[in-house]
């Protein structure tokens, strides 16, 4: 029960950090996922897929969990405790199967989960994209760490945008998603020695960082949008405005980070917030709607700049 108790404490803490609205949204998604899994168990083929998916997900967790060495070496009956933990959290996903014709998948999944708890192998962390430091300078550490952390989503979405760069609207939609992935780069707060290193005053610091990171964004987005404008000349102005708005969304991500910056802390995600702004402002514009909310990110940037600057005064020689 110890592991379950620890996880419940962690979940409670995360929910508190996320706030009521995000927690409610996640809970809704969770309920929806449980219902979807129930529907999958109604049909043999999808039930088999659901069971396999569940077992594979547990295997992935077992292979990557950071506390495995501790649990296996320090706790009594570690396999049983890990099994209890997995079973507890899987209950909402496997229990509904009991009310379907394919209820026999429940013991099969549980047996697979128990087998998984015996897996002691652990992935060793490796340096991915080791040459990235030659393209992105270390002073842009958010991008260095971020591209490595989110390499699959970042690179696949960017590749999709690049491949579809000749088509109308599609590359812009992919680039909107790339901007949201980039916004996740700003979820980690650097230690103070790195903060001190970059600039003396909040103003210099923020402007320097914004300038460097907007240039990086342009380096990635401009080629795609240039091809798009070349193939579809009527999109030239739309693409120029699109690039400007994406830059302001990025700036918003940076300012949001420093508005609540605390050394060495992980910040709550701002992607949902930025996704709402993207949906309200950029999407209608690209899709040919009336872009009356287009200046919104720009005004939010001005508002956030002052609160970010105030927060940084606490840490820099203001």
């Amino acid at each position, binding site marked *: 029960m110890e592991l379950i108790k620890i996880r419940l404490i962690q979940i409670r803490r995360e929910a508190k950090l996320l706030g009521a609205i995000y927690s409610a949204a996640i809970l809704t998604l969770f309920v929806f996922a449980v219902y979807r899994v129930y529907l999958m168990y109604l049909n043999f083929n999808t039930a088999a897929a659901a069971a396999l998916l569940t077992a594979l997900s547990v295997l992935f967790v077992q292979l990557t969990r950071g506390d495995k060495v501790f649990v296996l070496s320090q706790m009594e009956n570690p396999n049983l405790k890990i099994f209890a933990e997995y079973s507890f959290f899987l209950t909402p996903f496997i229990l509904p199967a009991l009310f379907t014709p394919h209820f026999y998948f429940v013991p099969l999944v549980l047996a697979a989960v128990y087998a998984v708890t015996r897996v002691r192998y652990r992935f*060793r*962390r*490796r*340096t*991915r994209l*080791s040459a990235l*430091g030659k393209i992105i*300078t*270390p*002073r842009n*550490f*958010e991008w*260095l*760490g*971020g591209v*490595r*952390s989110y390499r699959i989503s970042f690179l696949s979405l960017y590749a999709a945008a690049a491949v579809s760069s000749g088509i109308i609207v599609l590359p812009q939609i992919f680039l909107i998603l790339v901007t949201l992935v980039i916004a996740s780069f700003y979820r*980690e707060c*650097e*230690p*103070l*020695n*790195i903060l*001190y*290193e970059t600039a003396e005053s909040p103003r210099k610091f923020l402007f320097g960082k914004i300038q460097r990171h907007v240039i990086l964004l342009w380096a990635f987005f401009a080629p795609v949008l240039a091809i798009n404008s070349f193939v579809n000349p009527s999109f030239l102005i739309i693409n120029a405005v699109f690039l400007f708005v994406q830059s302001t969304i990025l700036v918003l991500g940076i300012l949001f980070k420093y508005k609540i910056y605390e*050394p*060495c802390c992980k910040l709550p995600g701002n992607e949902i917030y930025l996704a709402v702004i993207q949906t309200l402002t950029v999407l209608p514009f690209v899709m040919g709607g009336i872009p009356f909310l287009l200046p919104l990110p720009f005004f939010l940037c001005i508002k956030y700049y002052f609160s970010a600057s105030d927060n940084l005064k*606490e*840490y*820099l*020689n203001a």
Partner: protein
Amino acid sequence: MLEIKDLKVSYGSNTVLRGINLTAEEPAVYGVAGLNGSGKTTLFGAISGYIKREEGSIMIDGRKILRGDTGYLMTENYFYSNITGNEYLNIFRQTNDNFSKEKMNELFKIPLDDIIETYSNGMRKKLALLALLKQERRVYLLDEPFNGLDMESCKAVEIVINALKEKGKTVLVSSHILETLTGTCSKIHLLKDGIIHDTFGTGEYDSLKSELFEDFVKTADETIRQSV
């Protein structure tokens, strides 16, 4: 000259530093000794600006201390995720012309091309020390610099401290292992109950030992012998 006057720091209602007065008149190595929880890390954090001070002043050569005056090696260092040791070092501008990353790493043997998450605690400490030495500072604050290091690296840190002293720097070193301080420091300040309780010169380290441990050893000896 580093001059700390009436420094007070609290965490909520818990006052950790109750009025620190400390003067480092000439460039030398000064030790800060104290038991766990005595406020050594808080003192270093306050000097470097990492921790907000409630009251008091910290001056260097008659002016207010600035962020760039101090180099701070923390007990446990935090690094940004998913960056390599090399990338971490390259974040910092080199202001110490004598520093050579390659030469230093021949001694420290850090796998600089790997991401920092794969490093052991000792390697992390050595990496933080390299970043610190890359930059020229007036005052160096080394909080438990020997923790987690192997014997060779401990010796290397000892040499680093002595070299900084020879270069005319003021170095403040904290440790809860007294022997690591007595070998390097010209004065040791004893931090107790949130104040500098006493200061000991090189000839007075035996008095420091008895000040720190005498009462404790008497009680501990009896209790431990009964329990073991």
